[in-house]
């Protein structure tokens, strides 16, 4: 057991724990806090994978901006304990099987498809390509058009949020 393994298992455990807590928590604010736990541990895993820029964006945008938005809305609406409804039939009979099928199917796709198997069988990983300069070159040269398209998407999202949240006259 080397240090990266220990770090990986610790973070994976925390992430899975946070995801389970998200499901079992009855208060939305508890779900939000456990989701922040998942995101922070995923950021540590990104660092371990040699992607410091993505880890920083994960903390700043995901755990920072997006989750603050969630927590803000939860507090604004004073969202209390979730009502425990009579389990809808779909959740009861399809929910767990669907989750298990998705996990098994994802595993199958990841490990038995050709590219997935090639990755899973690669015992020794090449050194991480993590280089923020190279990443920015890629983003602003090869992917310039998608980048500009996302800026328009953000603009539309801002307008949509404004229109939706506006009080009716």
């Amino acid at each position, binding site marked *: 057991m080397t240090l990266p393994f220990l770090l990986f298992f610790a973070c994976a455990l925390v992430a899975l724990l946070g995801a389970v807590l998200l499901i079992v928590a009855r208060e939305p604010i508890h779900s939000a806090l456990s989701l922040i736990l998942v995101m922070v541990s995923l950021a540590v895993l990104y660092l371990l994978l040699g992607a410091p820029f*993505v880890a920083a964006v994960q903390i700043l945008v995901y755990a920072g901006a997006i989750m603050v938005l969630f927590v803000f809305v939860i507090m604004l609406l004073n969202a209390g304990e979730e009502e425990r409804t009579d389990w809808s039939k779909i959740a009861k009979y399809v929910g767990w099987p669907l989750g298990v099928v998705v*996990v098994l199917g994802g595993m199958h796709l990841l490990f038995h498809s050709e590219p997935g198997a090639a990755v899973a069988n690669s015992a020794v990983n090449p050194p991480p390509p993590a280089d923020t300069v190279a990443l920015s070159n890629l983003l602003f040269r090869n992917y310039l058009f998608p980048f500009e398209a996302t800026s328009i998407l953000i603009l539309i999202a801002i307008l949509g949020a404004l229109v939706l949240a506006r009080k009716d006259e």
Partner: protein
Amino acid sequence: MSVVPVSYYLALSAFLFGLGVIAFVFKRNIITIFMAIELMLNAVNLAFVAFARAHSQLDGLVFVFFVIVVAAAEAAVGLAIVLALAHTRQSLNVDRVNLLKF
């Protein structure tokens, strides 16, 4: 230098995605359902970064960047819809929003 096999990350990603699906189906609060979607997006991001690492290519990281941007836009619009819904229905329970249900 990390020696953790990439397959470990992919397995963790699959488990997180499955938990996200379970949360999406089981939760009744519309805000928590949104959080389940965010959890699934995070799981996919982890798979992207793991594959980028495995192939020593940076394109996967660019895709993670785009996924995060789209998630931010989706959260902004979605939470605005939640606000509008809460004002008209006085409830966050998706079972109460059944006007279109057959």
